[in-house]
């Protein structure tokens, strides 16, 4: 099965197209979506196994020879990201059944999610820089649908901002790819890597590197390009925020990590130092935002910004510990942000508000929710043995090895602020006197809690079982740090 690496991209696409045939039949939509996601998940697990056993998988579409055809490459890093994105989508869709409302379900909500997954998984899998732009567009188009679906006033306002920002960044993307093409004369990522290594350090390549950082930085939400993120992500309903928060920024982060390890390794002193400085600043503004708001959504959204900074800091030091830490932390963050958004979604459903000052005393009626939230919050802050710990530990270790003493200490300190920001939610929402009324029935509460708890359990297992994941993370790190593995897989049998 040489086409195996395409299955996580194609299966959501197939099921999305099938869903368009009967948009008004809500029950059928739900069932078909779940079946599709299960198939896609199964294929991604098979892919993980195959990549682990046989190494990097590469396929050039249409039987053309690389670098002329569009190459799709699945290394351990991308296979793991594909699996976690499908996993998150599975839980978000499950959660949506009792949360999103029939009106949206009848308006192409599920097809939009599946089309977005096609784009996300495609962007993770592609080995062609222009094709990456195409998959970015696929996921952006679907995210436009999801952000505006429902047509509330705040959604319309924020979606205009979101669309304008993304159109600007997409056009900059094409321009940057054009610059790169004019320098190296190829679009195949493995081939670009070879050609750029031949060219060596040069001014224009550094300019292109910084342009790519701007393009992907807008999508990923790094300082100072994150300005659109807190507003736009707060507008749609919770399942959509969970999907955006867990996946979309991570696509930008993935693209930065991929281009900064595969392409731009000739002028590390400039490009990666810039990346490091920006990632530290990203953490600073994220921390300020996470403490400044009384709105639960904003607190978690600013935590996304912090996480983006932490991951990119690990990637910028370019040594084994830092890189492995980044990979660990990236997957951890996808899972934990999904779980957190689902949990605060339940809090918002119960109290009918996202303002911390208007809620309180939920512990009495909803102890389970409280404890699960506390565990996930500890996981986010990185308290051992939960999932955030190992990633952050490795990132900090990488920082020390890279002689970035103060920056590493700063990352450690930022964990305390992360902890404080999420514990504030716990204190305000769960402690104290009961305030306000409880708006949802017990049955609905249970239905919402089930996917959230399952996802939370997975994050705990991710942390506790980190030992078993090390070989996988090691493979991902090796390919990132040694581009020749990636290049050889693409040109296998050609050169």
């Amino acid at each position, binding site marked *: 099965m*040489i086409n195996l690496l395409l299955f996580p991209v*194609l299966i959501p*696409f197939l099921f999305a*197209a*099938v869903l*368009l*045939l009967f948009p008004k039949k809500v029950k059928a939509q739900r069932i078909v979506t779940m079946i599709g996601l299960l198939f896609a998940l199964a294929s991604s697990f098979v892919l993980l196994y195959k990549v682990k056993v046989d190494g990097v998988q590469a*396929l*050039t579409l*249409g039987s053309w020879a690389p670098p002329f055809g569009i190459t799709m490459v699945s290394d351990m890093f991308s296979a793991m990201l594909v699996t976690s994105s499908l996993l998150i989508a599975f839980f978000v869709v499950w959660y949506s059944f009792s949360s999103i409302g029939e009106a949206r379900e009848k308006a192409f909500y599920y097809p939009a999610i599946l089309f977005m997954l096609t784009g996300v998984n495609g962007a993770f899998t592609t080995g062609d820089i222009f094709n990456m732009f195409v998959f970015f567009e696929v996921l952006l188009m679907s995210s436009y649908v999801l952000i505006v679906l429902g047509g509330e006033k705040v959604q319309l306002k924020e979606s205009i901002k979101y669309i304008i920002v993304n159109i600007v960044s997409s056009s900059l993307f094409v321009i940057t790819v054009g610059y790169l093409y004019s320098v190296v004369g190829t679009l195949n990522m493995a081939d670009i890597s070879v050609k750029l290594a031949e060219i060596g350090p040069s001014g224009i390549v550094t300019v292109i590197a910084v342009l790519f950082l701007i393009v992907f930085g807008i999508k990923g939400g790094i300082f100072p390009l994150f300005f659109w993120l807190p507003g736009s992500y707060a507008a749609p309903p919770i399942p959509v925020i969970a999907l955006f928060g867990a996946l979309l920024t991570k696509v930008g982060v993935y693209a930065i990590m991929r281009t900064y390890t595969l392409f731009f390794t000739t002028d590390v002193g400039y490009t990666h130092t810039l990346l490091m400085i920006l990632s530290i600043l990203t953490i600073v503004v994220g921390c300020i935002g996470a403490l400044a708001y009384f709105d639960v959504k904003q607190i978690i959204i600013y935590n996304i910004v912090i996480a983006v900074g932490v991951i990119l800091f690990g990637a910028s030091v370019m040594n084994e510990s830092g890189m492995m830490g980044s990979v660990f932390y990236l997957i951890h963050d996808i899972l934990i942000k999904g779980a957190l958004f689902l949990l605060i979604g339940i809090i918002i459903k119960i109290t009918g508000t996202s303002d911390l000052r208007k809620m309180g005393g939920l512990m009495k009626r909803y102890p389970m929710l409280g404890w699960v939230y506390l565990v996930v919050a500890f996981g986010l802050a990185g308290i051992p043995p939960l999932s955030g710990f190992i990633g952050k530990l490795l990132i900090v270790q990488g920082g020390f090895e890279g002689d970035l003493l103060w920056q590493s200490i700063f990352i450690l300190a930022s964990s305390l602020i992360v902890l404080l920001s999420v514990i504030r939610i716990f204190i305000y929402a769960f402690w104290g006197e009961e305030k306000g009324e409880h708006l949802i029935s017990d049955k609905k509460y249970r239905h919402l809690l089930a996917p959230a708890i399952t996802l939370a359990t997975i994050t705990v297992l991710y942390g506790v079982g980190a030992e078993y994941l090390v070989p996988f993370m090691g493979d991902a790190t090796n390919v990132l740090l040694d581009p020749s593995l990636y290049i050889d897989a693409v040109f296998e049998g050609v050169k």
Partner: protein
Amino acid sequence: MKTNDLIIQTTTKLVFFIIFLFSIHIFFAGHYTPGGGFVGGLVMSSGIVLLMLAFDLKTVQDMLPINYTLITAIGLLIALFTAAGSIFFNVPFFTHVYDYFNLPLLGETSIHTAMFFDTGVYLVVVGVTMNIIQMIGGDE
């Protein structure tokens, strides 16, 4: 406001079929020469838009009671399944094949799997374009 559109209506009735046939022609011209499903689909949609200009949205919807979302979905599925044929032969996705067939009337014709893919593209383009135009045009 009802204006007297006799000239444009009469012309449209004739021209529509020319546009339709031309879009089919462009569709088949694709692959070796400029043309193909995307352009053909756009030409076809512009023909339907001309109908809408000459008559009005309601009349055209009665004339062509087509669910364009359905057309889009069918187009996507045709394109996907044509490309997915390669999966069953265990060759890279999108690999295309062609052969020559003796068809009645047409004689020896080369038939290419890319054509079936393009049929899907044609339907998707018509479906999406008409969906957008109907949605914007129907919104008073």
